[in-house]
């Protein structure tokens, strides 16, 4: 029998709470630098420089072609033998961010490419500068296109972050696993961790839905309110597309 009391105790206990905070911290930091890396890579691909394009190609090939778990272990264990000593947390964030960058680059690039060339031409013809065209015409349209796949990546990152438990970062899954093996209450410990994960993903999904709404130019005229369940269903639908 599962003891709900114990689940509750685990949820409010400091180790679980700290584990959840660390999971969130790893996720948010990795995402931030991942999006940054993706943006740099995507812009490099837009340039006509051959060396830069070759660099991005190799980068994407390496990070999409090997498991994230491999990348985490590699950065944590191999770099020190070349004198680069990083904390487990830092190794985790670097690995996750670099990995994320490869996927974000593809998403961002497809968003930029989805804005047709004629839109830029029309902006230029009005006397806007290239950077104004980028800022007021291309980016707002690209943002709307990349938001759903980016949201999926973000939720994915929350779950992927559990992998860093292999390098002994005290995130949520490691805490749950350690607690369970000490007390043999696997069901309760893992349920407590599962609850945290679900709460976090739900928050992410809600944030995504809010962002998508705020980027919808017609939002002000669409007064109808969607029930929460509908919106979550919509979010899961778009997640399946990937």
């Amino acid at each position, binding site marked *: 029998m599962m003891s709900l009391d114990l689940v509750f105790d685990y949820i409010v206990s400091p180790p679980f709470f700290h584990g959840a905070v660390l999971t969130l911290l790893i996720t948010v930091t990795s995402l931030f630098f991942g999006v940054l890396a993706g943006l740099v890579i995507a812009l490099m691909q837009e340039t006509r420089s051959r060396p830069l394009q070759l660099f991005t190609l190799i980068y994407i090939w390496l990070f999409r072609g090997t498991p994230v778990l491999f990348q985490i272990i590699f950065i944590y264990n191999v770099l020190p033998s070349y004198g680069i000593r990083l904390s487990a947390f830092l190794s985790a964030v670097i690995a996750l961010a670099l990995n994320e960058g490869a996927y974000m680059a593809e998403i961002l690039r497809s968003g930029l490419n989805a804005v047709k060339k*004629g839109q830029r*031409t*029309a*902006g*230029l013809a*009005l*006397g*806007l500068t290239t950077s104004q065209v980028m800022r*007021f015409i291309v980016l707002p349209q690209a943002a709307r296109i990349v938001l759903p796949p980016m949201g999926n990546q973000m939720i994915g990152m929350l779950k992927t972050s559990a992998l860093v438990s292999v390098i002994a970062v005290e995130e949520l899954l490691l805490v749950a696993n350690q607690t369970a093996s000490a007390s043999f209450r696997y069901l309760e410990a893992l349920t407590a961790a599962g609850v945290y994960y679900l709460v976090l993903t739900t928050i992410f999904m809600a944030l995504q839905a809010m962002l998508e709404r705020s980027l919808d*130019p017609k939002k002000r005229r669409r007064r109808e309110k969607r029930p929460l369940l509908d919106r979550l269903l919509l979010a899961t639908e778009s997640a399946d597309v990937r």
Partner: protein
Amino acid sequence: MNDTTRADPPTRRPATRADAPLLEIVGIDKSFGQSRILKGCSLDVRRGETVVLIGPSGSGKSTLLRCVNLLEPADGGDIFFEGANITGDFANAARIRREIGMVFQNFELFQHLSAAQNIMLAPMKVLGLSRADAHDVALDLLRKVRISDKADAFPDELSGGQQQRVAIARALAMKPKLMLYDEPTSALDPEMIREVLDVMADLSAEGMTSLVVTHEMGFARRAADKIVFMEDGRIVETASSEAFFGGSVNERAQRFLDQILH
């Protein structure tokens, strides 16, 4: 700037500033890779004039228009706008383009902005108008192109004809001295062509200097002062509207005309 120091072709006397055409294209060449698209095209558009440019598909009409507002660099020849040589002046491209409105075959309204916002963007960002002033400008222009009720509609909620009229209003918002139209009605259903041509003809009648690529001969008859026929990168006929429709045009132009009038 100093057009007097330029070696003009012998047939052409250097125009003085005052009576210079608003737009003067002199012997423009343009190649894409190996293929020569424009082969020494010359063309004048005087203030207040409407010039209609016709010619078969692929003859280089769009390329010529794009060279005029520096969207495409010309390989040779000169373009004078208001007497100033703007050829290759890409440092000032944005400033020059402000004065030259352009309307595209596919409208190219900004999809994320409403009709009014499409019109307001450039006046606000380029001319520095306040939002309120830009909004007033937008509403005035929407009235002018006869769709005042669609200010808050988004492009995907408008018919093709309505979109093209918003696109014309958007170009007018910059108070251009010259309007370039590149086949503005060829993507439209027949029943919408009229409403767009009417707006264009009204503008021409009010004295808006225009260079129009179109095969709508009804419009040409109504609004054009001059008709230019282009073929295979060359301008092969330039005729006044009367001469053109009076039938005194060269054989190639006449053949093309017979074709499009079937």
